[in-house]
């Protein structure tokens, strides 16, 4: 088991190096010249000498392979360079905006869990009932509704018509309600369906029949045995849909003017602020990789047989 965990952790190193390579290649084929971008951001007229000097300073005159390793070393020290726009270190700007995004993401996951676990479980237990049909409808809507549009619909009903909640910004708990609802609907759609399918699968197992013949109360069987095992794919789903959550925060932050990392990223795209773009893309990849690793380890903890046969879903 320890060797399995070790192997899984070591396996992420080449993936991270490859992810850095992809962002490195992207930046090198981009039409923006970093030296020129810095000079024009600092309002200095770019002459040939100044450009050459800046290029030397950034190491752009070195062979590509050397530049790649320098990039890797810098990233290991969390040095993502300076923003073209503000000339501030990118990492500082990012860490300042991170808590807002994390708050939004965590509250959305929690809300999605609170709604989808009972809903998915009940729609499996009472298959084809009213609640099952409702959850099916909700899932189709959740999977098909554009998040930005849902955000504006909620703003329209709760802020404009009813005037209950603020339209945008961050501060009190009231500011958190609409963004959380917007972001979590897509997650609720997925988790509810996953849990429903998984519970239905478990109900076919012979241990359920055995427990019933032993006369164990239906409620106990369901909650203590079935739900405990059936929840595992939902945890996998949490890791696999992390990307959806992240891109969701970009859009939701834009709709509700939430001062987070995603909004900063979109601003950077408009300003062609390459260091910020690189930092976001790379961090997203690293978070995605680490999230999937954590999910694997949690699953291993819940079902130690996995380390013998490898990941089940592969």
């Amino acid at each position, binding site marked *: 088991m320890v060797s399995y965990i070790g192997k899984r952790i070591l396996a992420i190193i080449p*993936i*991270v190096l*490859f*992810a850095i*390579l*992809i*962002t490195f290649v*992207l*930046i090198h*084929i*981009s*039409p*923006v010249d970093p030296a020129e971008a810095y000079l024009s951001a600092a309002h200095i007229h770019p002459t040939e000498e100044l450009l050459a000097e800046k290029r030397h300073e950034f190491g752009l005159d070195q062979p590509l392979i050397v530049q790649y390793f320098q990039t890797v070393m810098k990233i290991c020290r969390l040095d993502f360079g300076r923003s073209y726009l503000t000339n501030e270190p990118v990492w500082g700007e990012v860490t300042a905006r991170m808590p807002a995004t994390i708050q939004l993401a965590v509250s959305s996951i929690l809300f999605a869990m609170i709604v989808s676990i009972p809903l998915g479980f009940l729609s499996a237990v009472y298959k084809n009932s009213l609640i099952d049909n409702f959850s099916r409808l909700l899932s*189709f*809507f959740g*999977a*098909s*509704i*554009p*998040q*930005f*549009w849902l955000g*504006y*619909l909620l*703003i*329209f009903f709760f802020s*404009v018509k009813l005037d209950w909640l603020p339209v945008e910004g961050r501060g009190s708990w009231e500011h958190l309600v609409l963004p959380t609802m917007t972001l979590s609907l897509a997650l609720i759609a*997925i988790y509810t369906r996953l849990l429903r399918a998984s519970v239905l699968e478990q109900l076919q197992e012979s241990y359920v029949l055995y427990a019933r013949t032993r006369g164990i109360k239906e409620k106990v069987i369901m909650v203590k045995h079935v739900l405990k095992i059936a929840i595992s794919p939902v945890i996998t*789903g949490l890791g*696999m*849909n*992390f*990307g*959806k959550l*992240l*891109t969701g925060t*970009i*859009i939701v932050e*834009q709709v509700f003017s939430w001062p987070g990392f995603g909004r900063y*990223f*979109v601003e*950077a*795209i*408009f300003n*062609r602020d*390459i260091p910020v*773009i*690189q930092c*976001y*893309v790379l961090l*997203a*990849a690293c978070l*995605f*990789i680490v999230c999937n690793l954590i999910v694997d380890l949690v699953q291993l903890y819940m079902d130690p047989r996995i380390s013998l046969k490898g990941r089940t879903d592969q």
Partner: protein
Amino acid sequence: MIPHIRTVLKGQKTITVCSVLVLVFAIITVLAPWISPHDPIKVNVAMKLKPPSAEHLLGTDHLGRDNLSRLLHGARISLGFAFLIFVSSIGIGLIVGTIAGYKGGWIDTVLMRFCEGVMAFPNLVLVLGIVGVFGPGLIQVVLALMLVQWVYYARMFRSMVVSLKERNFIIAARISGSSQWKIIKQHMIPNILPPILVMGTLEMGWAIMDISALSFLGLGIQPPTPEWGAMIHEGKSFIRSHPELMLYPGLMILFVVITFNVLGEALSERFGVKRRF
């Protein structure tokens, strides 16, 4: 071909209804310039924000442009480009996946490691990164979506080909001296058609959502071109006085994406294909 379609549709009410709807979308996409009552980008400030009338069935927007015409033309862009992305990403994925699965060896290893590398990124984040580096614009968005999406199909088709390769009828074809290309073309591809149909349908839904999300962020289609995501972006400024401006395009997206998702789900049940997520 037609009797074959009939057997597929027999007793499948959901598939039939959704297919007809998809056909209607396709007709609107092709015929938009001819069936639209007005020019979708012609500004007429004197007619701005008018309620529905006989001349403008859904009213006009803040620049006096006809809403119905803009919605119909929007279908052309959203669906047209989604179709382009779906065809090209499944096409590239099919070619790469089949080669990797069929050839095996180092070609397989290199191609699949590359795919895994791309899959290490949440896909819309990588798309945004590419658009960020090369600048906003429709071409960049479409290319970025293609570049990111095909890897998922390559992986899927590869694993199908690997499992097909060991089946008896393929081995028989190989023993009887069929060329590699003939085996791929005649025996492998027909067997992976149903999953292509299912994935393609779902891909259309995702592509429409992604294109509209990027246009909403202001990174894809640039004004004044009518596109549903971009129209919601424009309409949001009038959320207090004229909410219908952002309501119509959103409903269009929702309706089209739901149709594709329901169709994809029904098809996957019909053919017994496992879904991606």
